[in-house]
């Protein structure tokens, strides 16, 4: 009896002790956990809609329960279409480019900012770069339009026509758009990312640099052997998070900036815009849920795979 008495409650007692010692941390965790539960976990119940022919009945929850099960039929609409390949390709390629540029350019800028001796100026630059992040894509789309419109666009009117060349019909020429879209994406997010990396660089102990300087290391060597290696964990985390969303394109960018011009779909259409357009006017809740679920599942798999690879290379740097 004594033996069972000791063995059984032990894990429980251990847990209780753990709770008691960490009570402050748990209390801090609770509000976040609560929000996560309400916003992210409870709505997950809605995933079943993807497998149902949604028909309204009394209220939302009853409708979900009483709707007819139709298996994977809701998923068909996406995979059956001729454009499925094109939009998937666009989504992944654009996101890959964005991930790479989202590391390279902001890191370079962050390092440059850090080297500025005038801290006031450095803060000023940072704020200026941060500004586009707060503009909505709608605003950006009109900004782009004021540049690219045929009749009144700045580029056609003040540059191309001034050089005596024929106006370019930007919104009908797919070949320019991979660059235009990339440009606006980088323009909008670089500031934000640069701030993150700049914060990480500021956290690096200045003794490293002093020691390196005494040993005669050049600025480039300091960057290469101190800054970048110490930035690596942050870079990996940011990249992993971005990889998780590789199947979710930035809807605002791809929908608003090309002005929904059909001629450009071959290079501007991504999964999100495609699904939106197919479902906008048909009110098919089931198909919308199916495509959302598909993106989430694939995104989840990619993030686990990427993390697995990182862990294989360097256990300490993996996210989990």
């Amino acid at each position, binding site marked *: 009896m004594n033996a069972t008495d000791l063995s059984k409650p032990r894990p429980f007692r251990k847990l209780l002790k753990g709770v008691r010692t960490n009570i402050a941390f748990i209390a801090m965790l609770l509000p976040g956990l609560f929000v996560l539960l309400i916003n992210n976990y409870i709505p997950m119940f809605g995933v079943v809609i993807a497998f149902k022919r949604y028909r*309204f009945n009394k209220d939302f929850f009853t409708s979900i329960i009483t709707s007819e099960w139709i298996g994977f039929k809701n998923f*068909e609409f996406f995979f*059956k279409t001729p*454009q499925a390949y094109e939009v998937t390709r666009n989504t992944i390629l654009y996101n890959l480019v964005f991930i790479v540029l989202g590391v390279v350019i902001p890191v370079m800028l962050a390092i440059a900012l850090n080297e500025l001796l005038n801290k006031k100026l450095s803060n000023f630059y940072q704020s200026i770069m941060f500004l586009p992040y707060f503009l909505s894509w709608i605003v950006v789309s009109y900004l782009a339009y004021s540049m690219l419109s045929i009749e009144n666009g700045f580029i056609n009117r003040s540059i191309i026509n001034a050089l005596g060349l024929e106006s370019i019909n930007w919104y*009908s020429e797919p070949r320019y758009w991979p660059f235009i879209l990339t440009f606006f994406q980088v323009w909008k997010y670089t500031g934000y990312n640069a701030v993150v990396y700049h914060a990480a660089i500021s956290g690096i102990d200045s003794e490293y640099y002093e020691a390196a300087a005494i040993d005669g290391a050049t600025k480039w060597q300091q960057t290469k052997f101190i800054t970048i290696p110490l930035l690596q964990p942050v870079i990996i985390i940011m990249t992993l998070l971005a990889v998780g969303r590789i199947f979710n394109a930035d809807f605002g960018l791809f929908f608003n900036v090309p002005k929904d011009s059909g001629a450009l779909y071959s290079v501007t259409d991504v999964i999100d815009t*495609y699904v939106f357009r197919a479902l906008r006017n048909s009110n098919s*809740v089931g198909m919308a849920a199916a495509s959302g679920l598909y993106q989430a599942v694939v995104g989840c798999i990619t993030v686990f795979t990427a993390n697995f690879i990182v862990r294989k290379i360097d256990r300490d740097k993996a996210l989990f």
Partner: protein
Amino acid sequence: MKKMQRSLSFALVLIMMLTMIITGCGAPAEPAASSPAQSASQAPASSQAAEVPKEQVELTFYCVADSQPDMQKICDAATEYLKDKLNVKVKAENFGWGDTYTPKINPMLASGQPVDIVFTANWAANYRVNANAGYFVDLTPYLKDSPIREIVGDDFLNGSAINGKNFAVPCNKEKVHNWGFLLKKDLVEKYNVDVSKIKKMEDLEPYFDAIKKGEPGVTPLLNVQMEGPFKLLDWDNISDDDIPGALYPDNRDNTIVNQFETPEAIAMYKKMREYYNKGWIHPDAATQDNFSEEMKTGKYFAVVQSMKPGKAEEMKLSTNIDWVQVDITTPVMSNRETTGALLAIPIGSEHPDIAFKFIEMLYTDKFLKNLFVYGIEGEHYEKVSENVVRLTDNTGYRAGNGWRFGDQFIDYLLENEDPDKWEQFKAYNDMGIPMNSLGFAFDATNVETEIGALKNVVQKYYKQLFLGTADTDSTLKAFSEEMKKAGVDDVIAEMQTQYDEWRKAVGK
């Protein structure tokens, strides 16, 4: 150092998670319906006798048309007026036209929000799809001995019914349609356009040319999205405008064709390409997305519109521009009209009985109807005589478009409108040729996948063809190929089967 790195990365992860939580709330919203809606089959309060409900309830009424700054004033006036009639607090709002209205209303319906009255049509808030999905209260029992039956007429009520059930009430307006041009009056006078000689679009070409040369800043022809000369072909579409499948508008046969690939359509594409190259269509046409706003700028000479008597005068109200009306196609009565403007009661409504009484009043109560069309007397308009009004300079409420709800025949007339407008309407209604397909409702359940795909293909190509912004032959070739891959043949075959069965059933 290691520790600091760790805590830093932890902080970063937290930030990321927070951003995700804040921005990632795209998941289905919680249902708003607090009490289960009264079931549709429940019989309405049988007596029409107006017993005023003791407690004031809120009545939401969502409609198409541009949002108006003074909407709140109109709602307050309606609430005040209805105090001893229905005792409701009216909460009305306009959400723009089809393309902006539909995506706002559909989620409200799907999540069962307690909205009482919504506008719906074949071009806004998908009347047929949503009625089939059970989002609207079956109004058949309500309509049984409602004065609306007499006002609207059985032909329209039956034409808009789905399998014999009325899920929405059609508005009483013109019952036929034809297509034509509205020409800007000052330019018609300046260039001496002989309107009586214009029988087809080509007759306008010399004027397009003259205006292009003589009026810098004016584009001869407005062509935005689907609102353009393609409409003049007047396809009797089986489903939405962006889904292949249509009948010729002259009852020549009962074969459903892909309207985007007919010789008539191809000739139109070529014509548009020619116009675009000549600069008769705005160079930025492919990116314009707001037809009514473009029309209001007054920078266009000709605009394609669906016609009816007094259309030009009616459009003066919402555009503030004088127009001259030129009819091109012959009037027909098709499913476009019977389901062209309806009011429905969503299943989430908490008081459908009161909502229906409100709808009824839009047919019978002259004051209430005109309040929502013209605004408040003395503020937005003033009376010239019993039935004629003049707009004031106050543009706070210019909703107009009296055909959107209720009985348009009880609307006041504007000073510039013909006093026999409503008699002309009746004559016009008699002129229309009823289409063979009148009353046929296509059920898309079996080909939902294909239709989803086809919508995207059409969206991808139609602008280049309709607006002439790209080479016709190569675009058309790619368009046809993609439609084929998306299953256009299956969709048209399904339409044909259903249509033939329906014809057999009704004996046509």
